[in-house]
């Protein structure tokens, strides 16, 4: 339990750092934050009014307190561009991002697991070669390049999928709209899946090859246990904690991937919202999107941590002793 609390504690620290970073990045920057929203030609009175409106006239600690309260209550304030509540816009976009990331994460993990295991068990097979190639691709090809190539192939050269967007224009009615949504989602999810698959499968393969060479796996075979049991209960269970760590470490990258993927496929998600907000110097909006993405990461972190503690009896046992 203690082990888990320690890990959960570090997640809270991450969140705190993100909050602080978010605040200070926007406020302690070269120049006046007001310059971003107000035209320099505005009269001093108008500028002062704006400062009051955005709470920029108060001392920093007070601003920080207000800011933390706003963030934790998911209010995020008003957008500097549209003057509408940021949360209203984000609320509509969050499902799109989750619908992109979650299936991609699940698919790439499942496929990576299968591919990595097969590659490790059948050295020299086609699957191993695919895994090695995909691994090299995912470490050296920019994700957006792979996605653009996919777009060129499957949306331009062979128009099987739409070039951009999350829905057709005009959007179809009823049940058709669900299929339309999935149809638009297919290529982005597929691209994220193969990109995630390569790296993950390569890790699994390498760790599995090492695990299969361990003494205890040889001994498990010597005990006459069936192959599946040796592979899964002995070798794979042994590498499960590091595998979970790999998943954990890849999460920030996956979230970063959302920004790029949403940009390539012109999807309405939190990532592209962040890009648009950054480009238009809309700090409350950018901050909120950043916070949300960080929150997503931290949430997944905690989830993986729980799995980690459950998977490794050594960690579990040490916790129980204390």
């Amino acid at each position, binding site marked *: 339990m203690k082990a888990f609390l320690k890990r959960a504690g570090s997640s809270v620290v991450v969140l705190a750092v993100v909050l602080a970073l978010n605040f200070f990045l926007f406020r302690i920057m070269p120049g006046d934050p007001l310059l971003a929203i107000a035209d320099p030609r505005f009269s001093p009175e108008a500028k002062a009014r704006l400062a009051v409106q955005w709470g920029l006239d108060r001392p920093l600690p007070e601003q920080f307190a207000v800011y933390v309260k706003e963030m934790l209550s998911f209010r995020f304030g008003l957008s500097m561009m549209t003057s509408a509540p940021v949360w209203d816009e984000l609320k509509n976009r969050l499902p799109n991002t989750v619908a992109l990331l979650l299936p991609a994460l699940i698919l790439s993990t499942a496929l990576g697991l299968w591919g990595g295991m097969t590659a490790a068990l059948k050295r020299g097979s086609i699957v191993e070669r695919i895994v090695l190639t995909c691994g090299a691709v995912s470490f050296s090809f920019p994700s957006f390049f792979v996605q653009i190539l996919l777009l060129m192939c499957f949306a331009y050269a062979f128009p099987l999928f739409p070039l951009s967007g999350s829905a057709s224009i005009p959007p179809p009615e009823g049940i058709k709209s669900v299929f339309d949504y999935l149809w638009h989602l297919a290529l982005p999810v597929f691209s994220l899946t193969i990109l995630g698959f390569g790296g993950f499968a390569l890790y699994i393969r390498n760790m599995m090859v090492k695990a299969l060479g*361990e*003494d*205890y*796996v*040889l*001994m*498990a*075979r*010597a*005990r*006459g*246990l*069936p192959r599946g*049991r040796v592979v899964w*209960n*002995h070798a794979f*269970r*042994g590498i*499960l904690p590091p595998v979970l760590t790999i998943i954990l470490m890849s999460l920030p990258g996956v979230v970063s991937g959302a920004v790029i993927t949403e940009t390539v496929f012109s999807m309405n998600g939190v990532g592209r919202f962040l890009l648009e907000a950054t480009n238009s110097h809309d700090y409350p909006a950018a901050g909120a999107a950043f916070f949300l993405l960080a929150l997503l990461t931290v949430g997944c972190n905690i989830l993986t941590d729980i799995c980690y503690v459950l998977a*490794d*009896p*050594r960690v579990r*046992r040490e916790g129980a002793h204390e």
Partner: protein
Amino acid sequence: MNAPEKTSLEIIGLSVTYAGHGTHRRSVRAVRDCSFSVSRGETVGLVGESGSGKSSVLMSIPRLLPESASVTGKIFCRGVEISSLSEAEMNRWRWRKIAIVPQGAMNSFTPHLTIGRHITEVLEHHFKMPRHESEARAAELVKTAGLNENAVSRYPHEMSGGEKQRAALAAAIACEPDFLLADEPTTALDVITQKEVLETITSLTRDRGMGVLLVTHDLPLASGSCDSLLVMRDGEIVERGPAREVTSRPKEPYTRMLTDAVRDMEKPR
């Protein structure tokens, strides 16, 4: 060579060659034309310095050598030529008829499983024993091997080397195998524990009438607990005979060297 006996483990003309890897393309012939047999109730010592190929002999019997190894020769266990069995059939012989006590320095236990689980897993698989029965049996086995009963719920990393070796012994005799292959079972243990573990092996196998192949580099240790000895050098068996005879009147210069080395060390200073 006579027809294989029904009660023994016979190794006839065994050779093991390792294919070379990468820059070391030279293949290595680790074992050359070895023949010997182990009868039930008998303890045979296979002695040689490190690199003499004795571990290769041992691991080739349950067919557990790495894929780079090619094995020729015949192996009979209780009259059945196990060297020509399919992998699936071979799997039924492993542990039920031929079990291994691994090297003390090996991580022979899966780190995330308890000692008890290692034993119950084997029992459940080979004898289709229900969980509660196998657990009771595991506790019993662990006690016979001279361990505390609560050892079954401990993880390998929570045990000392001697304890682990005893647990390995308990796991090895779980299926009452006919033959026990002990691969340097006492290396990496201190002298006193070495003696205790070896005594446990001897007593447990004598009671059950198991045949033991004891692979070791420790000649005095082998001569103390074996009925007969095989001396290996560079992949070949250079001398064989009853334990006492080999140690007291070694014929081969190599064996003489080994015994002399021991004698030199034991000489009072």
